[in-house]
């Protein structure tokens, strides 16, 4: 076993402590920014839907502005967004580097995408069902929590899965710039020192992460879908 590892991935073995640390950093970045993004994205997504024309809290001005802001952030390439957000990042978390510094740009990079995912998921909820709830005397708050978020759950789970997977990608980029995480690890060793085995191992680890998220998503969907 040891010989095989030494033969094929010698550099990984040499840097295994740092590899473990990078994995931890990636998990930290993805879960913290993930949780913040999910909460913000669901709130914004719900607002995007309920303020649409003809919907329960119709508000064209709000809806328009919200849509424009989201499109604005979505159109900025993430690598540029990271740079542009440095002052804000410093202001919020006190530092623009390291795992901590990555959280702010990750949230900004993820929330617009995730909000749209939520919007799509909630738009799939049958309009007739919303009407039935209205006819039964449900309040807008009732309709949001008891109808939209519940009936739209399969779509929301799908959105969460896709978003977390893309967040792993973004976290590698953010880490590479600010330092920390698997992306940073792969760049420093695999790319800059030509230790290609490190790059491959990193890919495999990320692949495992993605599979776990996808698998969990599918599992939950199977449980709730009717």
């Amino acid at each position: 076993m040891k010989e095989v590892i030494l033969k094929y991935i010698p550099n990984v073995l040499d840097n295994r402590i740092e590899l473990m640390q990078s994995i931890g950093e990636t998990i930290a970045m993805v879960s913290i920014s993930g949780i913040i993004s999910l909460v913000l994205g669901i709130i914004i997504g719900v607002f995007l839907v309920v303020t649409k024309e003809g919907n329960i809290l119709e508000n064209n001005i709000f809806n328009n502005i919200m849509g424009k802001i989201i499109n604005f952030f979505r159109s900025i390439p993430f690598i540029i967004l990271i740079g542009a957000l440095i002052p804000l990042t410093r202001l919020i978390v006190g530092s623009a580097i390291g795992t901590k510094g990555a959280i702010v740009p990750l949230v900004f990079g993820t929330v617009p995408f995730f909000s749209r995912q939520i919007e799509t998921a909630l738009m799939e909820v049958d309009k007739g069902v919303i009407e039935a709830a209205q006819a039964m005397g449900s309040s807008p708050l009732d309709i949001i929590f008891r109808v939209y978020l519940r009936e739209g759950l399969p779509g929301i789970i799908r959105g969460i899965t896709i978003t977390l997977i893309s967040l792993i990608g973004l976290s590698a980029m953010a880490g590479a710039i600010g330092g920390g995480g698997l992306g940073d690890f792969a760049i420093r060793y695999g790319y800059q020192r030509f230790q290609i085995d490190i790059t491959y191992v990193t890919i495999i680890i990320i692949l495992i992460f993605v599979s776990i998220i996808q698998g969990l998503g599918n599992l939950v969907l199977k449980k709730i879908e009717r």
Partner: protein
Amino acid sequence: MIEIIGVTKVFDNGKNKVKAIQDVSLNINKGEIYGIIGYSGAGKSTLIRCINLLERPTTGKIVFKGEDLTALREKDLRSRRKKIGMIFQHFNLFNSRNVYKNVAYPLRGSKLSKEEEKKRVLELLELVGLKDKVMAYPSELSGGQKQRVAIARALANNPEVLLCDEATSALDPKTTNSILELLRELKNKLNLTIVLITHEMSVIKQICDRVSVMEGGQIIEEGTVAQIFSQPIHETTKEFIDTTTNRGKIYEILNKEENIFNIKEEDVLARVAYIGESTTEALLSKGSRKYRIDASILYGNIEILGETPIGEMIILFSGERENIQSFINYFREKGLIVEVIDHEGSNSKVYTKCS
């Protein structure tokens, strides 16, 4: 119970305006089943949705139990809506909830304990005949069963009015009948007032007391179902009435090239009609034996309007000419209306429609 007063609804999307309802006024009495019939696009859904203000009228008032709903604040309107149940063409059940949870949905906030809620839900499911499906999900139910769940859900808060927007239009005829029967039964049991819209005259015929015919956003004719059936005025109304019988069809078939009923030259074809109770069938077999005539019914129809049955048949008599004549006279003596339909042999197309 419900007064629709001068309601107009204009849909305005900035570019063009659609006048879906034009100055409609209606009174719906307590305890009646009121039907609104019209072709697709006539404005029926918009009108019924105006009643519980799912659609806010552009002008006009909706008065429910003496109170103008259009003047209420949102919160008060919501509490009134609990007294106006609604069911839909596509059932609109919560797919993520099982039957129990669907029916329990509107009970939230009604201050029932868990036990009381359970009792109420089971009671409602009993009422619609679905007690064995408590744990099923909508995707596991047939259309008729889904509509029963929807009815139970709509009745959860003891509404006084039930609005039905094409509630049977997605169902097959047999299921349609069972749902209509259920509605009638519930109306009597719970003292409901029902407003239903449909594009099928058969639905109106089956359960409505009064009916409005709608076209182009307006009510073009209104009356009791018997009135509308016996004396339709508007062309559209007549069209709707024709859809409930196959009379036109039978003449079409008779005039076709091939002689599918195998009518012979010496046979006699007649339209036999009766009003009120009749023993036509008994007379038919009795007369057939007595005069040694084969009598086959090519077409038969009974309308029951209010309490009065109106029956109509097209009968093919074969046998001796004189005997047929005696048979017909016998029918006439017994009070049936008999009109002989002209024909000249099996291949000619001279069956004339008699009115």
